[in-house]
């Protein structure tokens, strides 16, 4: 297994009396999209800033690309903050060239790389405009270019789809997937759970400064799956063996199973029943949205995975 791009171990950070991060641990591997999730004020941004060496952790350890953050070259990291940070009264091209040279590119190299990027995100025609003259979506795309122009090994994006229409959202998703395919690590922080579900391999969920959920997205969804199956089709779905209750929801049937029931047995029983025509049969897995709400609202205790999770502490 290759060396992790990020190792965060029991990170803690306080500002005066406020404990922004209490105990956060996770690892990010090369070539994966990793979701850094949590409600507002959970400590995500502070965690990111510790990774970026903007803040030093009060406790714990963080390792970036095999070194401590102050020793790793900042040129190997690309960061897209939630708040757009571009000089508003300067031409777009100048801002992007300046930021690229700060990341170690020469003037000529930055210029050569910039042109195809601007063409790709449809900003080439606007390169001489001041940033403040661009729309929010254009500024967001410009920020993405600023993040990637120097070809970083670790990419941290905070709400990368903010202000984008569906076409541009698709464009940025494609770009993220290309970066991952090239072996780079992407840490994505967002509240758009369907994007996390679509893009991320693994996630960490932080709440009140602590890791409360950590692992592969598919495994977490399975762990949180209710003991039920969802069925669509024609026929009678009531009175099946090992099924406690059959309830119709949004045009589909939700069959609640007895403890220890085998869904395959239920499927076989359905297939054998005359007059039943099946169009869909699947385990009732919750969406990440549901899991997020469940965990954060404390409706259900989370299952910690991969040894990186910590139980939620409401104290």
């Amino acid at each position, binding site marked *: 297994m290759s060396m992790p791009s990020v190792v965060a171990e029991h990170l803690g950070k306080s500002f*005066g009396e406020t404990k922004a991060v209490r105990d956060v641990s996770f690892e990010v591997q090369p070539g994966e999209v990793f979701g850094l999730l949590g409600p507002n004020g959970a400590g995500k941004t502070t965690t990111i800033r510790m990774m970026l060496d903007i803040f030093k952790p009060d406790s714990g350890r963080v390792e970036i690309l095999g070194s401590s953050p102050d020793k790793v070259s900042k040129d190997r990291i690309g960061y897209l903050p939630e708040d757009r940070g571009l000089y508003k009264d300067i031409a777009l091209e100048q801002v992007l060239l300046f930021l690229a*040279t700060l990341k170690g590119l020469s003037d000529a190299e930055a210029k050569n790389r910039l042109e195809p990027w601007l063409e790709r995100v449809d900003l080439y025609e606007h390169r001489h405009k001041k940033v403040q003259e661009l729309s929010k979506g254009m500024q967001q795309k410009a920020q993405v270019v600023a993040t990637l122009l120097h070809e970083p090994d670790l990419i941290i994006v905070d709400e990368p789809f903010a202000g984008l229409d569906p076409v541009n959202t698709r464009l940025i998703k494609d770009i993220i997937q290309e970066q991952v395919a090239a072996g780079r690590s992407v840490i994505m922080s967002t509240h758009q759970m369907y994007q996390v579900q679509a893009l991320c391999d693994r996630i960490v969920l932080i709440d009140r400064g602590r890791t409360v959920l950590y692992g592969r997205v598919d495994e977490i969804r399975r762990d949180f799956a209710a003991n039920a199956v969802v069925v669509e089709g024609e026929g009678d779905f009531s009175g099946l063996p090992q099924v406690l209750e059959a309830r119709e929801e949004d045009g589909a049937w939700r069959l609640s199973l007895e403890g220890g029931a085998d869904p395959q047995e239920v499927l076989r029983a359905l297939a054998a029943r005359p007059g039943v025509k099946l169009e869909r049969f699947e385990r009732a897995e919750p969406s990440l949205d549901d899991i997020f709400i469940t965990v954060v609202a404390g409706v259900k205790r989370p299952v910690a995975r991969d040894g990186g999770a910590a139980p939620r502490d409401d104290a």
Partner: protein
Amino acid sequence: MTMRKSVLIARQEYRKNVRRRSFLLATFGLPVLMLAMMGVSILSSLQSAGDVESLGYVDRSGVLATRADDPGFRAFATEEEATAVLEAGEIKGFYVLAPDYDRSGQVELVYGERQPSAGVQDRFDEFLRANLVGSLAPEVAGRVLAGPEDIVVRAVEGGREERSAGVIDLILPFALGLFISFALMTSANYLLRAVTDEKENRTIEIVTTSVSPKEFIAGKAAGLVGVALTQVILWAVVIVAGLSLVAAFTDVMGGLKIPWSLVGVLAAFFVPLFILAVDLVVILGVVVADSRQGQQLVGALNVLFLLPLFFSPLLGSNPDGPLMVFLTLFPTTSLLAIAIRWGATLIPLWQLVTSWVILILCAGIGFWAAPRVFRQGMLRYGKRMSLRGFFDAVRARG
């Protein structure tokens, strides 16, 4: 800390600022204004010179009989003759020296519609004084006219002595101190705006993922010193060129000597004072919530550095009083206080050394604290940093 990134930030900051409309207006507007004022001064001087022929005198005392250094005033034998020429419009006025002038000093000025200019009257005074000392040996007469210009001032404690050469030596250090302080405050004001702008634009979060706080501060400060120097050097060139022009037409600049010892002292103070100013400005820029609050505090910051200016009237009565000594020792006011006092008194060596040591210590503390406060406070968008937060930031891990 890598120099390359600081240089890039300095270059960017310099380019951004010198293209601002306010910069162009201030940089080129002031010299134009200065040149206009100098032009008026030269014109007035030329006019005064021309006026000499339009002014006459009637010497009933015989003081002007030798007509030493006569610049060309018209001499009349009687008042009637002078009055006739005045009424004919050939002259604008004439002086009448009383018969007992050497005892009474009484001089009467008769003029037509308009009084002759102050400049031409001054020239008549000079002409009169030159004749009054005409009987003395030329070198003695020269010293009498020039006044005391080569007094050696020696401190009681020993160790330092200075030569004083009159009013110009009092004004020159003052002007030099003001000039340096102004350049310094201009840079500081630019820097404050730059830091608060970065905070408001949220660009700081991007930039600091590429550079360290020290690289960022060093780059910003260097770029803005470049901006301030561009401005003041341009102004200095205009001033020197203008004064050279004025000197060519008048003798205002006579007896000017560059106080090199003061230049050396100010140079030694400038670097640590600049570092201290940068530290204070960075802290101020980070602590305030936005640029509006920052601009409100700029005035207070300027006062902190320019305070000796407000007490300069005390110089004549008590240049070595406790207040002036305090201002000399206080780090932010030291340079200007020294410059202001330089021409008026002999500043004891212990005060210079103590002041410099205090300044170096303060600049060092600031250089250590500013990046820490910057690191903690720069991302507090739209929020002020409390006093407690400030001390927490200073104590936090670098």
